């Protein structure tokens, strides 16, 4: 298969997918962490207990590093609408530009004005204003999430648009566009998933300290806050938000749901495959182990409901990588289930007062760090692969959206450039974050030490 001829947008797609997946490793943590910082700053204000301030100070440093990498890897995302997806921007810019710009004007200004104050301004601002800075950053980051998800929701489920005289999209109803039913479900699902990442990372660092027998008070705080929030968020990711998300896909993108489940033949009492491999050439699911009727029930509310199969749809409307879509979706579900189990056990042990004396559980919590990231990215792969072959569902194909003036050579060149730069950036990030974690929360930010103090 020659990707040039079959898939002319291939390199631009790959570059966008790579830079976006990489970018989203950072905002998912800051969106989750932001509310922990608010909570700890609030507890510190109310109780005057220094351990909360210490926790907030420590995590603000981690937050600052993530935020900085999130900002610098985020700018390329917006620019790529123009550089790599010029035809798409011409076609839909009047609509999607609204939320892209609102994200900048209404969310990023708020976030960026206060993030410096949150990370470095404790002394300048005093406790009350410093708490407010944390609130402002949390609100800003969640608002920006809402706007970018509104943009994505329009691509998943276009509403409130009209086709203008020049053939491009224009806005017909702004309220329909902003209050897209898709976005509320997606926003809730996505933000809960960000909280899962935040909770797991905090609990993991708590477990790391507990296992090493250092920073005992802080470790206890991280473990308690992280696992409690982790269980709540992991449950909410699955139900109701994930459940509603799947129903939304079933209602508006039936072909996507069929591909996610590897369902080629439609019918009532459709089952959910626990395992099985989609065989697209033979149009069947190989070696399936199914729970009968489960898919009908989950997607449409009744065990007897009819679930569409891929065979009912023309092949040129099938998602173009059914295998990857199927495995992304199923792996995400598996991980989500494991998160509930792990956090459930951790909360139970904590309630019995035995969490810190269960080394096995602490090891599991510590080593679980990569998995919420993987699950978040898999979720986005499910959403974006499931939307194919459309850039805007049922309106505009991905293969019509790329920039014709940009040669494949240029895109391959910049993709390699991004890969190299992001590799170095990743090493740097891991080194500095690891260093902060190794130094631990007892280190105070005392400003310039060393040379100046010595003099």
């Amino acid at each position, binding site marked *: 298969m020659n990707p040039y001829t079959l898939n002319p947008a291939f390199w631009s797609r790959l570059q966008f997918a790579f830079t976006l997946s990489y970018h989203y490793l950072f905002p998912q943590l800051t969106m989750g962490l932001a509310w922990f910082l608010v909570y700890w700053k609030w507890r510190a204000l109310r109780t005057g207990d220094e351990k909360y301030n210490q926790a907030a100070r420590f995590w603000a*440093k981690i937050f600052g*590093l993530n935020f*900085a990498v999130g*900002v*610098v890897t*985020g*700018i*390329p995302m*917006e*620019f790529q609408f*123009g*550089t*790599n997806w010029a*035809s798409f*921007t*011409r076609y*839909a*810019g*009047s609509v*999607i*530009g*609204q939320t892209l*710009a*609102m994200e*900048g*004007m*209404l969310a*990023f*200004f*708020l976030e*960026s*004005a*206060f993030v*410096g*104050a949150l*990370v*470095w*301004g404790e*002394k*300048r601002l005093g406790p009350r204003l410093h708490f407010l800075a944390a609130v*402002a950053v949390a609100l800003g980051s969640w608002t920006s999430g809402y706007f970018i998800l509104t943009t994505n929701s329009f691509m998943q489920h276009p509403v409130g648009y009209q086709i203008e005289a020049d053939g*491009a999209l*224009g*806005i*017909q109803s702004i309220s329909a566009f902003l209050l897209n039913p898709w976005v509320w479900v997606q926003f809730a699902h996505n933000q809960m998933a960000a909280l899962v990442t935040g909770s797991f990372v905090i609990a993991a660092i708590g477990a790391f300290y507990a296992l090493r027998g250092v920073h005992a008070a802080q470790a206890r705080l991280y473990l308690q806050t992280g696992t409690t929030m982790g269980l709540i968020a992991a449950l909410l990711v699955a139900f109701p938000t994930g459940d509603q998300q799947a129903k939304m896909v079933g209602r508006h993108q039936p072909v996507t749901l069929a591909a996610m489940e590897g369902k080629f033949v439609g019918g009532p009492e459709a089952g959910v495959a626990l395992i099985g491999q989609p065989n697209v050439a033979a149009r069947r699911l190989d070696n399936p182990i199914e729970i009968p009727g489960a898919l009908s029930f989950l997607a449409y509310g009744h065990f007897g409901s009819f679930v569409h199969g891929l065979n009912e749809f023309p092949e040129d409307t099938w998602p173009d990588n059914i295998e990857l879509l199927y495995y992304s979706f199923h792996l995400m579900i598996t991980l989500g289930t494991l998160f509930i189990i792990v956090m459930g056990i951790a909360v139970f042990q904590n309630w019995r007062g035995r969490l810190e004396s269960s080394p096995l559980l602490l090891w599991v919590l510590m080593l679980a760090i990569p998995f919420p990231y993987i699950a978040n990215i898999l979720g986005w792969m499910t959403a974006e692969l499931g939307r194919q072959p459309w850039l805007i569902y049922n309106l505009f194909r991905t293969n019509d959206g790329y920039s*014709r*003036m940009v040669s494949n050579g*240029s895109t391959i*060149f*910049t993709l390699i*450039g991004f890969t190299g*730069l992001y590799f170095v950036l990743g090493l*740097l990030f891991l080194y500095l974050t690891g*260093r902060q974690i190794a130094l631990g929360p007892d*280190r105070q*930010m005392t*400003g*310039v030490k*060393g040379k*100046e103090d010595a003099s």
Partner: protein
Amino acid sequence: MIAAWFGVISFMIIVYMVLDGRNFGAGMLSWQVAKTPLERRQIIAAIGPLWMWHEVWLIGFGGTLVAVFPRLMATAFSGYYLALMLILWGFILRGISLEVSGHINDRLWQSFWDTVFLFSNFLLAILFGAAAGNLERGVPLDAQGDFSMAFFTDFTPYGNVGLLDWYTVSVAIFVAVLLAAHGATYLTLKTEGSVHDRSARCAKRLWVAVLPLFIIISLQSWKIRPALFQDSIRRPLCWLGCLVIIISAGALISGLASGREKRAFAGSNGVLAGIFGTGAAALFPIMLYSTLAPENSLTAHAVAAHPNSLLFAAVWWPVGFLLATIYFIFMSRRYAGKVSVRKDNQGFYD
């Protein structure tokens, strides 16, 4: 309506250049005016708490451009593909070097990242200058409203146009010197001690260099696109822009001479805004001029979004702008006065 949006877009990019210009300038001078890693921390602290807020003006500009002039964004960004990617990489390097150099109290670590900071700022100033030059000169737009062009040309005045040719490189050098002078004026206002004294000396020398360069650039622009000059003479807004430049230059000169640092910095802001504003006012209504055939040029009317979109954007944009201004005033008051590396460690952790 479309003229108003042209004004808003120009306003946003000018505000961005004035605000982030001081950071580019300070970055380009960071080895000139600060001789030790500790002195360079003063420069980082002066830029520090609000650099992301400044950069959001560029992000807000990009978003608003998609919303109100989507076809311009599509044409210009894909036509300038490689240059824009270089700008993006420059931003990544600048943001990262700014954030991480203070993380480890090690001479080599700090010198390395301070060097990356220096070069990335220099690269960005040159590329933004070249972008301004490309806007003034125009690009080879075809009848479909697309273009692609060489990254370099042979630099002869009569050769092909390219992203970097004799004219755009001249503009880039001018812009780099202008931003360096602006940054030096800012550092004079924000720093103390020997960094302050060196910045003040630097500012005077650089502003003296700006004047002859400005005259050369004006002559070159007149040669390369004479119609633009003839148009601008008839535009009251351009005369207003010139007036702003003259008044601001007066404030700048008297401020520099008498050591009134706030006045000098206000003047410096005014000079930058005046120069870029006059350029934008002269360009209207053409957003991207075609060097192949004038009728291929993209006007604001041709690239604008549909009326509903413009109308709707007119609702949220002022709200966003007002809120952004409030945050800015709030934060600026907190960070008013000279920076102190003891108080504003800006990531100087241990």
